[in-house]
């Protein structure tokens, strides 16, 4: 155990854990993109377990931080944000895992390249939202919310396509399900962005 | 006094009813000064400063106006014997305080405490007789003679100790007599050192000796006060000193010569004083000087004690 000197130092510790979790999420999303592009099966269960563990660690660390330093004002909001963001990143990893499961159920099925495009956008959203958090930049966060609309539209369109048909080809059905999961990923990216806007002290 | 504004009625009553008693003390003190001053005035007017620069004490029966009265020798004797007394008593005081307060078990502490109380309570004539019969011969035999033989080249010991009745013996006897008072004052000062400083000294790894040094540093104003009070007492001591000091008006650098002190002078000459004009007045001047010496020592001591209190919180 090493003695920490200040609240800032303890916060950096939590942020480091969170950054690890972020990288697990990003790696999972990238793997999903590749699998979609190449129609290959994928297993992300290890990533999911790691993400869950990291999330739990961050919860404990953040709780202890609150007990230890009794933060107030924006510092308190920021710690809350770290907790919420760790949950979002964990969920994002879980959705990536579900997409991987979906793909693996029908190996070799070609998925529309537009879905790959949406997956890339979702990943970018996560990346931007997280950057906004660590770099404490509100404008980056705002940008994320705008992108969310794009993904929503893509998902709605796919859903409508499926709903309007008597019979749906397998690719289309799978694409719709995957889009739905990507839409959830984007949602969590948006939550992160909103946390940033809420927790950062107006400069 | 701002407190009087908020005083209750009954408090006020008490305050005013006690006022006369305080006034009596102050009045008595002022009167003491006034009378001493009044009676001394003729001598001061006649002899002026020469009263304090002359050693000779020569009352002239035939021609009273040719009488010579000098207080220099008794003043010198008083100051030197008192100084010797304090110098001798001080290290003993410090050691006794340390032994009582730090290094003795409960029993021994109580024993030493009561011995000192008994010492303080003894009539001074007892010290005087003991000094006369025991101390003076003993010192001459076992201390002064060897000192003179071995260290005779030092002016202090350069004269032959013909008798044991001299300045040195007066100093030694006085040191024994003032010891109980000095111990009492110094012990109080030592005890008023808050426990937390004792702890502080020990927590930085001070050994017993170093610890004692630090404690003495803390108690220093109180110990200086003890020395001053001791000096005041020694200067005023009469009977015992008169028995051992030799009663010869001499100013000498050698401690083994007989001497005089103001108080022994007063005691010895008082009965004859009415026979000579001015002698009474001169003796009262001596008394006034004693009073001033005593007051100065006490005032400084009180200031030292107050300072110590303030410092230790």
């Amino acid at each position, binding site marked *: 155990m*090493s*003695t920490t000197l200040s609240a800032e130092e303890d916060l950096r510790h939590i942020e480091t854990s969170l950054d690890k979790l972020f990288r697990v999420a990003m790696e999972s999303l990238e793997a999903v993109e590749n699998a979609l592009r190449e129609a290959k099966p994928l297993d992300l269960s290890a990533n999911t377990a790691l993400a869950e563990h990291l999330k739990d660690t961050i919860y404990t660390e953040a709780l202890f931080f609150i007990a230890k330093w009794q933060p107030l004002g924006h510092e308190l909001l920021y710690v809350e944000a770290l907790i919420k963001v760790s949950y979002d990143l964990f969920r994002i990893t879980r959705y990536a895992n579900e997409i991987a499961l979906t793909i693996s159920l029908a190996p070799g099925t070609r998925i529309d390249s537009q879905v790959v495009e949406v997956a890339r956008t979702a990943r970018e959203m996560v990346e931007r939202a997280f950057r906004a958090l660590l770099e404490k930049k509100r404008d980056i966060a705002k940008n994320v919310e705008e992108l969310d609309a794009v993904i929503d539209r893509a998902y709605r369109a796919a859903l409508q396509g499926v709903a309007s048909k008597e019979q749906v080809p397998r690719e289309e059905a799978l694409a719709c399900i995957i889009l739905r999961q990507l839409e959830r990923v984007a949602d969590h990216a948006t939550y992160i962005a909103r946390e940033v806007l809420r927790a950062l002290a107006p400069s | 006094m701002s407190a009087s504004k908020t005083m209750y009625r009954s408090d006020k009553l008490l305050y005013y009813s006690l006022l006369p008693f305080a006034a009596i003390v102050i009045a008595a003190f002022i009167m003491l000064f006034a009378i001493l001053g009044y009676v001394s005035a003729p001598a001061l007017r006649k002899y002026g400063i020469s009263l304090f620069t002359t050693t000779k004490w020569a009352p002239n029966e035939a021609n009273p106006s040719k009488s010579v009265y000098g207080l220099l020798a008794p003043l010198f004797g008083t100051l030197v014997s008192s100084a010797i007394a304090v110098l001798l008593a001080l290290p003993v005081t410090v050691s006794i305080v340390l032994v009582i307060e730090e290094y003795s078990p409960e029993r021994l502490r109580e024993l030493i405490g009561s011995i000192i109380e008994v010492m303080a309570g003894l009539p001074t004539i007892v010290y005087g007789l003991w000094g006369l019969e025991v101390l003076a011969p003993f010192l001459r035999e076992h201390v002064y003679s060897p000192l003179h033989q071995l260290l005779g080249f030092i002016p202090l010991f350069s004269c032959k100790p013909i008798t044991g009745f001299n300045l040195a013996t007066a100093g030694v006897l006085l040191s024994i007599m003032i010891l109980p008072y000095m111990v009492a004052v110094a012990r109080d000062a030592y005890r008023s050192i808050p426990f*937390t400083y004792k702890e*502080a000294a020990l927590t*930085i*790894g001070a050994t017993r000796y170093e610890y004692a040094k630090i404690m003495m540093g803390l108690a220093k104003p109180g110990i200086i006060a003890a020395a001053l009070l001791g000096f005041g007492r020694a200067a005023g001591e009469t009977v015992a000193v008169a028995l051992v000091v030799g009663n010869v008006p001499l100013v000498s650098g050698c401690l083994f010569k007989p001497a005089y002190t103001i108080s022994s002078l007063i005691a010895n000459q008082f009965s004859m004083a009415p026979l000579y004009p001015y002698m009474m007045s001169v003796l009262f001047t001596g008394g006034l000087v004693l009073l001033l010496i005593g007051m100065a020592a006490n005032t400084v001591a009180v200031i030292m004690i107050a300072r110590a209190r303030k410092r230790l919180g």
Partner: protein
Amino acid sequence: MERDAVRTENLNVWIHGKHVLKNINFRAAVSAITVIMGPSGSGKSTLLRSINRLIEIVPGTKVEGKVYIFGRDIYSDDPYRVRRYVTMVSQTPNPFPHMSIYENVAIGPKLHRLVRSKEELDKIVRWALEKAMLWDEVKDRLNDPPTRLSGGQQQRLCLARALALKPRILLLDEPTANIDPVNARKIEEAIKMLVKEEGITVIFVTHTPAQAVRVADFIAFIYNGELVEYGPAREIALNPRHRLTEMYLRGEIG
């Protein structure tokens, strides 16, 4: 070498017949801050004083059991030697009023002849005052008496006085008890820095759970002379196993 800087084994202390510490098995890890937490009268100061044998100057005490410091049983050692590398800062600021600020810090190194020259002494005094985060405030008045300092500054001066001995173990008895929050944080920070940079082992007594959690690497909770629970600060703060600890943290007993 042991991992524990301090370890007690079935330590029992009686003061005037009162059983004040009961079978305490306490330890403090090297180069970490171990907090002794507990309500008033629970025996925190007594435990602390058993570790530098200061308990012996309190009349009427009886000590049983062992205290090991770096594996050595201190009760079969010279108490004055022990107190050189196990120094203590008391609950109330107690700089020596008859010495200057400088002398207060210099006295330890001087006593133990840790220095050979005035320059070396100056250096140690400055180092200690810097580590106690007091240097900037007193560097221009080192010859003033300490009574001119504020309570918080005096407490930091006491810390500096202890540090000037370059102790390996530092005992702190509620060092921020009578001090405003800003000064208190300064002292806490100074202490953490010492652990980190100098590898000193710190045992820190406090009765406030918030401070315990804030400064501790490990927390020992004592109640009624008994060591109720001991563990990493995080464990004690988030997952105390004993009901008494839980209640104390919540402020329900004390």
